[in-house]
């Protein structure tokens, strides 16, 4: 039996719809002048997402709309093999970025960068201990020498070490 909707794409359209509705409600809390253009944009987003959602349904209207608004060709790129990846691998890749951000915020660049590179290479990248450690040390040294040493940009020290 064919499904009535293409779920991932349909859900994505609903997320944009929710964003549009939320933004519209938010815009209306401001006086008329600063709210004018945001309100218009919110309405445009709502209409677009509704058409998008309709186009993701397996109905005559959905199929007709899809022909006009969702062709095969997309001016974007994506890493080969990335489409077939499982949820766990995607979650892992996002986790590493978020973990690095959290570590930078807490401990600063000089502590977080070598730890992040080493742990990423060792666990996610499947590299040996020595190359992972070398990459971590060399990158951190290069970052420090370029930004702090050469250009005199202070590196963020981390909330635990006096950063704000």
């Amino acid at each position, binding site marked *: 039996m064919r499904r009535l909707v293409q779920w991932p*794409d349909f859900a*994505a359209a609903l997320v*944009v719809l929710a*964003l549009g509705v939320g*933004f519209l409600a*938010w815009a209306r809390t*401001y*006086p008329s*002048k*600063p709210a004018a*253009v*945001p309100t218009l*944009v*919110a309405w*445009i*987003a709502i209409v*677009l*997402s509704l*058409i*998008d959602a309709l186009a993701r349904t397996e109905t005559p209207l959905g199929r007709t709309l899809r022909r006009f*608004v969702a*062709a095969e*060709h*997309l*001016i*974007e*790129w*994506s*890493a*080969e*093999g990335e489409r077939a*990846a499982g949820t766990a691998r*995607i979650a*892992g*890749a*996002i986790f590493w*970025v*978020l973990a*690095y951000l959290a570590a*930078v*915020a807490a401990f600063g*660049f000089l502590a977080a960068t070598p730890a*992040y*590179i080493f742990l*990423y*290479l060792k666990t*996610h*990248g*499947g*590299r040996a201990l020595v190359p992972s450690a070398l*990459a971590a040390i060399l*990158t951190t040294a290069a*970052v420090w020498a370029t*930004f702090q040493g050469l*250009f005199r*940009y202070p*590196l*963020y020290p981390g909330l635990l070490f006096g*950063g*704000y």
Partner: protein
Amino acid sequence: MLESTLTALQALLTPLGVLFLVLGVIVGLAFGVMPGIGGTTAIALLTPLTFALDSSQAMLLMGGIMGAVSAGGSVTSILLNTPGNAPNAATCFDGYPLAKQGKAGLAIGAAAGASTIGGFLGVFTLLAVIPVMKQLVLAFGPPEYFMLALMGLCAIAVATGGQFLRGLSAGAVGLMLAFVGYDSVAGGVRFTMGSNYLWDGIQLVPALTGLFAISEMIALSVAGGTIAREGAEARVTSVLQGVWLSVRHWKTTMQGSVIGTLIGAVPGLGGTVAAFLAYSAAVHASKAPETFGKGNIEGVIGPEASNNSKDGGALIPTLAFGIPGSAEMAVFLGVLVLHGLQPGPMLLIEHEGVIFALILALLVSTLLSNVVVLALSRPLAAVTRVDVHLLVPIVVAVALVGVYALRETLGDVLLAGLFGVLGYIMIRFGFPRVTLVIALVLGEIAERSYHQSLNMSGDDWTIFFTRTPSLVIFLLLVGFLLVPAVRALRKRRREPAAA
């Protein structure tokens, strides 16, 4: 003019003149290659150094930086999908797919060729319009800015190929994000959720770094392997062929150069808008728009020609009126004032030699930096053969340190990370990131110009159509939107005929 050119040549052809120009080129390339840091930072960083130099030497240093930054930025855009500077982001769309196909050398060659030609055309345009600068800049008011911004936003529909609905949706989200922060029209803050950091709005550099660098690193981390796919040609043999392609596709090169020069000359719009418009125009003009985003060399040539030609254009209002065309020019304005060179029509009369030194430096550095990029293309392209798991943490770390260095704010780092995740989600669900970026760049300009225009006219919206420059831009915009429809109609007519 001849006397000034000779004076400028005299300043350049001294050991110190050559030294400062080469130093400018090296600094420009280095800052261009580093994601998140661009020409604005490079000029700002070296401004105190110019205090000890005479005006001509300072102009040689600055011209060297300006001419070289975009050449450096194009290399990382092509090889790592990480724009060195915001205007290089458009180069990623086709430069990176080319690198993935093992054609990094071809893309780098085409980028170098197009940006050299674009840079030269931009400078020659600057020379040509110097006598009529005043009339040109004064012709643009808020209605014209609004129409230009609208034209940029409508380019969304073109730039997203078949996925135009999702492109427009992403554009709408981009506009919502552009409204965050201080509202320059009503004078209050909006949509900040009580965060002081968001008062300045969504910062473009962290957003771009996140959307293009971090999100791509997430995608690579998921995919594994190397950037250039297995089976792709391993050698970088097509660099000169790439240069030749920028000449063979002379229409795209010229189109990008003209767009770069014109948009660069409009204060407030800047190189990013110019590069995206040049990309859209290349897609628009192509007989095979569906090949863009998959490694069409014209998708590299258009934005790169625009990237270097915009410098010549941006100098027009900066030198003639002291109105900077971009953030880079705003910092450069400080250098001019520091050296007692008061921008305005009299600048060219009183300090013609110094200005010609700047123009000469811009020309030479454009050529020099691209020659350096070409010479280094082989080792640089080797990056695409490295295991992505080695690249990912290094690029993420360097990009985020670069983002922090720009304003020394932790918020920028976190914003870049969040935009990275957003960018990846957009990739997964087929929302083009380019449209969000265009909207983010143009949102504030469009809203401000809209309100200013209505204030000027007493809420009479016909002001957008009664002023000649505004009407001309509007007609261009309509033509721009009609081209795909005309092309589709032609295709439909041809198909039955062929059948």
